[in-house]
Every structure is written in structure tokens, then in C-alpha cells.
């Protein structure tokens, strides 16, 4: 097992700036990063799969971590931006799940579960959600779940995604809290 890790200096054998996260990120503005995630996650092809995985029991905390880790790995934004926007993405996922009326959990019930076990559970839930996706619906959302599953070994599973919304992203985040337009069935009459 101890031989599984990289040997000292191994990273120097790779072409510099080969990985997307080694290059300057595409987005440096946290507000833009929030919009990028919202835009991506609200895409109907992805939203289905996202809701599907949340309904299957994937906690919002870990869905947020997976989305942020995937974006960092793809060089969209850096980890500092991830830390700033995490509470906004968490809130966005929570409000989306509530609007969709699905059953969801914010975190695993048993907080005492070991880190590795949590990681396994997250991976298992994502795999299960992928497996249950009908063949003809394996679109961009299915790929997104695959990316999330790939991100599980590297994501910081203990990173908190809740808390106060940082000032930098307060304005955009306020839109998520805003009242839905009162044009629904119940508002009539």
C-alpha cells in the first residue's frame, strides 16, 4: 500500500500546465462563478439528474462539494473561489430541491461516519443514480453525475458548505432567496 503514492519529484515528470487546474482559472469573479454553477445546474438536462441524485439520498453538502471540485478540476475557478461560493451553491441546491418538492438531506444523519465511509457512500449514491438513469436519458446530466463520481476521491468531504454568505457574493445570492413570482395556482382568486 505504501508504494501506491507518487514518488518524490514525480510531478516534475509531467508537462507543466498540462492539467486545467494548473493554468489560470477561467473565472476569477466569485459572482460569475456562482452564475456559472447556477446556469449549469439549472440546465434541464442536468437538473433532472441532480434532483434524481438528491432524491436518492445524496446530501446537498456533498453535491455542493462535488460540483465545486469538478469545476476546480476543469480549471473553471480556483479553490479560493470555491470556499467563497460554497454557501451560495449549497443554498441554491437546497432551494431548488425544495421548489421541486423532493425529499432531500443536507448531510448524512450520522455525523460520526468516517471520512472514507462518507466518500464511499457519496460515490455509491452517485453510481446508483447513474445506474437507475434510463438509457435514453443519459445526457449531459448523466455525464455530470459521472464527473461528480470521479471527483469524490479528491474532494474535501469534511469541508463545510453552509454558513454566512460572504459579502462578495451577497447581491447575486440574494436572488436565490427572493420570493417566487406570485403567479401560481394558489395565488389566483
Amino acid at each position, binding site marked *: 500500500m505504501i508504494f501506491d503514492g507518487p514518488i518524490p519529484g514525480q510531478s516534475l515528470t509531467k508537462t507543466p500546465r498540462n492539467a486545467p487546474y494548473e493554468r489560470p482559472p477561467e473565472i476569477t469573479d466569485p459572482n460569475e462563478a456562482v452564475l456559472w454553477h447556477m446556469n449549469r445546474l439549472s440546465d*434541464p438536462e442536468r*437538473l433532472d439528474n441532480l434532483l434524481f441524485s*438528491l432524491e*436518492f*439520498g445524496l446530501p446537498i453538502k456533498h453535491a455542493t462539494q462535488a460540483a465545486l471540485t469538478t469545476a476546480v478540476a476543469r480549471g473553471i475557478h480556483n479553490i479560493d473561489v470555491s470556499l467563497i461560493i460554497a454557501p451560495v451553491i449549497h443554498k441554491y441546491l437546497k432551494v431548488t430541491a425544495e421548489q*421541486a418538492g423532493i*425529499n432531500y438531506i443536507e448531510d448524512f444523519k450520522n455525523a460520526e461516519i468516517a471520512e472514507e465511509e462518507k466518500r464511499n457512500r457519496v460515490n455509491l449514491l452517485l453510481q446508483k443514480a447513474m445506474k*437507475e438513469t434510463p438509457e435514453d436519458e443519459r445526457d449531459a446530466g448523466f455525464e455530470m453525475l459521472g464527473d461528480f463520481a470521479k471527483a469524490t476521491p479528491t474532494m474535501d468531504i469534511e469541508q463545510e458548505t453552509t454558513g454566512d454568505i460572504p459579502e462578495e457574493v451577497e447581491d447575486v445570492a*440574494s436572488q436565490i*432567496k427572493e420570493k417566487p413570482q406570485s403567479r401560481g395556482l394558489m395565488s389566483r382568486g
Partner: protein
Amino acid sequence: MAIMPLQMLAGAAKEYSAEMDAKKQRAADILLAQQKYLMESGIAKIKAIRDARKESEARINKAVSFEFDRKAALALEMSGQLESIITRLTKLDEDPEKDISKQAVKKMSKAILENVPPEKLAQAMEYALDSGAAEEVTAEKLINAIFSATTPEEIGKVANTMGDISGGEGLPSVGPFGLNLISLTEFTPEKKAQAEKLIERQLAPLLGFGGMTNEGGRTVFNWTNPSAAGRIVSKALEYYTERRADPYLDVDIGDITDDITNKVNSLLLGGATLDQIATQYDFSTNTADFNVEPISTGNENENNISNTSTKLTPPSLQKDSFIDNFMIKD
């Protein structure tokens, strides 16, 4: 001099404000489009998920009605095998000529539970308990959730009215169990008699077959060494019965009789006599592990291996046999 930087600052602030307004507007547009989507097609998608869960629950209940342990049924559902088992059991149940062995179902349940890691079962139980809450959620409630609530707090309250909003932690997957569905049917005396005949027919060339006679409409096999042959057939049938009832039998039921024939053939090739096979061999052991012990003839001084039994040459050792052709001769 002091006015210029102020003008620049005001200009920058105005630009920032406009930019922020644009971002807020984009966020609002995204949320509005998402809400529209949820209203139009999202409900159908969510319904499909709920339906899948309900079907899963119905399969588990059906299995329980066939005397399956709930946990075992859940484990089978996790492995994706419950549907085929339910289909099979339903067919058996509808067939007046076939009976489902409740004892075998219980045996299978026990065997399944022994093979599922406890932590996976615990996860599955949690999932099963939580999935019940989802059944209460209706499309109507969903519409209300989207449009009647005006603040996130209210949305939260609506969600609470739908039941426990804490979802399950997912149904873990376990590998397929490789279950023997035949074991779930009763091994009736008629079926047992059929199996016995099949074994006799297949073993006939090896056991010293002396023709067949008809006794009261029943075909009876005659053997040159009736006691040994009868005992071997009886032991073979016992082995067949045991294997047939094995919930994890990983071969076709027809392969059990082939296995019996191969074992007898292999023992005879190894030099064992019918008496030795009849008295000393247990079909559940490998032929390679079978050590032939001499059978006492009553004449201990000669210390000979029994010659009271009929020593037969297996077909595979007769003239021009495969082995003969490949023996290295000096």
C-alpha cells in the same frame, strides 16, 4: 485636481453597480427558467422516480407475502434479482401442479442474509424506512410547493407538510446472488421418483446393468450387484436432493446427475469397486479425496482387497480407450 479622481471613482462605482445589476438579473432569469421547467416537465420526472420507488416497495411486499424475510427481499432488490424471482414465484403460485416450498423460501432468505454484509443491509433498511415518506408526496402538493410559498421559510414549511423531508441514504448495491430458483419448489415424491429413474438410467452402464423388468407397470432396473447398485443410487439421490435444495446452487439442475455419473466413473477408473463406493463414498466429497479402504473378506491372513464385489470395467477403460492410447509404454 481633486475633482478628477472623484469623477473617476463615481464612474467606476456606476459601472460596478450596473454590472452587479446585470448579474442579479441573470441570476433571477436562471431561477425563473428553472421554476418554469420544474412546473412543465420536472414534475413528470420526479413522478417517475417516485414510481420506481413504489414499484420497488411493492416487489418487496410481494416477496414477503411468499414468506421471504423482508430484509432478504430487500437484499434481493438491491441486487436487482427480486423482480425475476417474483415473476417466477407468481408463475409457480398460479400453476396448480407446482407448489412453492415455504420451508425452502425461508432457507433461501436465511442463506441470503448470511451473504449480505451487515452494513449494507443496515443502509438498505434505512432506505426502505425512508422511502415510505415519499409516497405521500403528490403532484398537487408539488405544485403548491412551487407556487404557493412566497419565502424560503414558507417553502420549508410546505416541504414539512409532505412528511419527513429527510431522505434516505440510497439503496446500496450488492452483487447478484446466483440463486437456485428450483430450490423454491417442493420436491414431491413424484419428482423424487423421476429423479431416481434419471440417476439409474445414467448410472446403468457403470453399475452392472442386467436389464429391466416390468413389475406391475413399473420399470425396475436389474443389477449384477443389486445391494451395491441400490445403495449407490440411494446415496446419489440423497446428494441430488441436497443439491437441489441448495439456494446457491450455481449449476443447472441437469448437471447434478452428470456430476454423479462423472464421480462414479472416476472412482471406478481409480480402481474402486462398487461395494467400496456404496459403503465408503460420500457424493459431496471430491473423488480425488476418496481413499479406498479394503473391505474385509473374513480371511484376514490373505490381506486381500475385497473380491466379493463385482469388479466392472468402466466404459472409458475398455479396449481402445482414450487413456490406453496415451499411456507411455517402455
